[in-house]
């Protein structure tokens, strides 16, 4: 079993979708961030008896690997953004439209996380952006080691923007630092205005909340100001941008926000 995630390690698949003639060579894994920590063991010389203090944070290993990712990204001036939401909030559609608006002014690539299939990666590939699909199998979230493996396959150019689309899940991904510059939580108005209160852990780690599908507000029983207030109840002062991927409303403000992102965590 994988030491960081609960999934079977053999179940995780990382695949670069063929893209352009100059990327046909095998990926140089040595260019990715450190992927594996040597299996450590205590430097113990006497038999342990009685009570032994451990005092170790349970996410210490993931956080350590996330630190490697963060340093690797910062050295190259690459901005990695972790997009999290429930399934169906419109993350992939948002990315497809964002890529269309940002290119060619800024190189963009994508790491897609899903339990199964290459459906999302194929959608991204059709936009022309390089994309790696990570299938987590039984796993319910991406972790820092998976991102390291994804980056080693993707080989994003220096100074570029990398979107990491996490597994659609409003619970587990919140706990796993990937080494990203910012965490973006996407919620669509069709999910109801109480989502931030029902899943506070996720919204409490957001650096930015995108409220998608605002074109559907006339058809749903959701008051936008209340949804915004609920986001700020669990993440005081968080920046919230309402938008519609379908109509394009709010996309300009989102793209402006992206241009202000630094590689180092904000």
């Amino acid at each position, binding site marked *: *079993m994988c030491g960081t995630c*609960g999934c079977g390690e053999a179940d995780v698949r990382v695949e670069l979708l063929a893209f352009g003639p100059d990327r046909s060579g095998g990926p140089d894994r040595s260019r990715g961030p450190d992927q594996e920590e040597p299996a450590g063991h205590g430097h113990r010389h006497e038999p342990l008896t009685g009570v032994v203090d451990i005092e*170790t944070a*349970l996410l210490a290993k993931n956080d350590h690997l996330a630190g490697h990712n963060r340093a690797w990204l910062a050295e190259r001036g690459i901005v990695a953004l972790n997009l999290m939401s429930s399934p169906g909030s419109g993350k992939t559609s948002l990315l497809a439209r964002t890529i269309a608006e940002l290119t060619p002014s800024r190189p963009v690539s994508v790491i897609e996380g899903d339990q199964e299939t290459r459906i999302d990666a194929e959608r991204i590939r059709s936009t022309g952006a390089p994309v790696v699909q990570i299938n987590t199998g039984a796993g319910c*979230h991406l972790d820092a080691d998976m991102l390291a493996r994804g980056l080693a396959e993707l080989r994003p150019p220096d100074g570029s923007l990398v979107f990491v689309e996490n597994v659609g899940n409003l619970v587990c991904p919140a*706990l*796993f630092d990937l080494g990203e510059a910012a965490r973006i939580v996407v919620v669509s108005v069709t999910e109801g205005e109480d989502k931030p209160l029902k899943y506070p852990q996720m919204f409490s780690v957001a650096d930015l909340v995108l409220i998608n599908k605002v074109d559907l507000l006339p058809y749903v029983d959701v008051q936008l100001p209340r949804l915004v207030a609920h986001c700020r109840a669990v993440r005081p002062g968080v920046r919230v941008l309402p938008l519609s991927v379908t109509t394009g409303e709010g996309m300009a403000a989102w793209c402006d926000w992206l241009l202000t992102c630094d590689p180092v965590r904000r």
Partner: protein
Amino acid sequence: MHELAITQGVVDAVTERTGSAPVAVVRVRVGRLAGVVPDAMRFCFELVTAGTPLEGAELEIEQPEGRARCRSCGRNFALPDPVLLCRCGSADVEVLAGRELGVASVVMAEPAG
């Protein structure tokens, strides 16, 4: 079900320190605001400890309450959930406790014989 990953982390953190010596009790700290369900951890514990030095060990879970301090009025208060709101109406609140997530200590098994 991130509790499976978290509970695997318990085994890793302990064996890194205690090696192959058998462990009788594992004491973990899971704050009430940590986003981890203790019952789910207990469920996973038996599964992930099978075949390790922690097999058969008792899992003791301490659950520190959430506590916070309001930066606006200075009040120190209990935080039953992650909605950061003081009675004075301010959301400018510092979480003091409740987010703990770690292994505190273990009790080694008595050597046989």
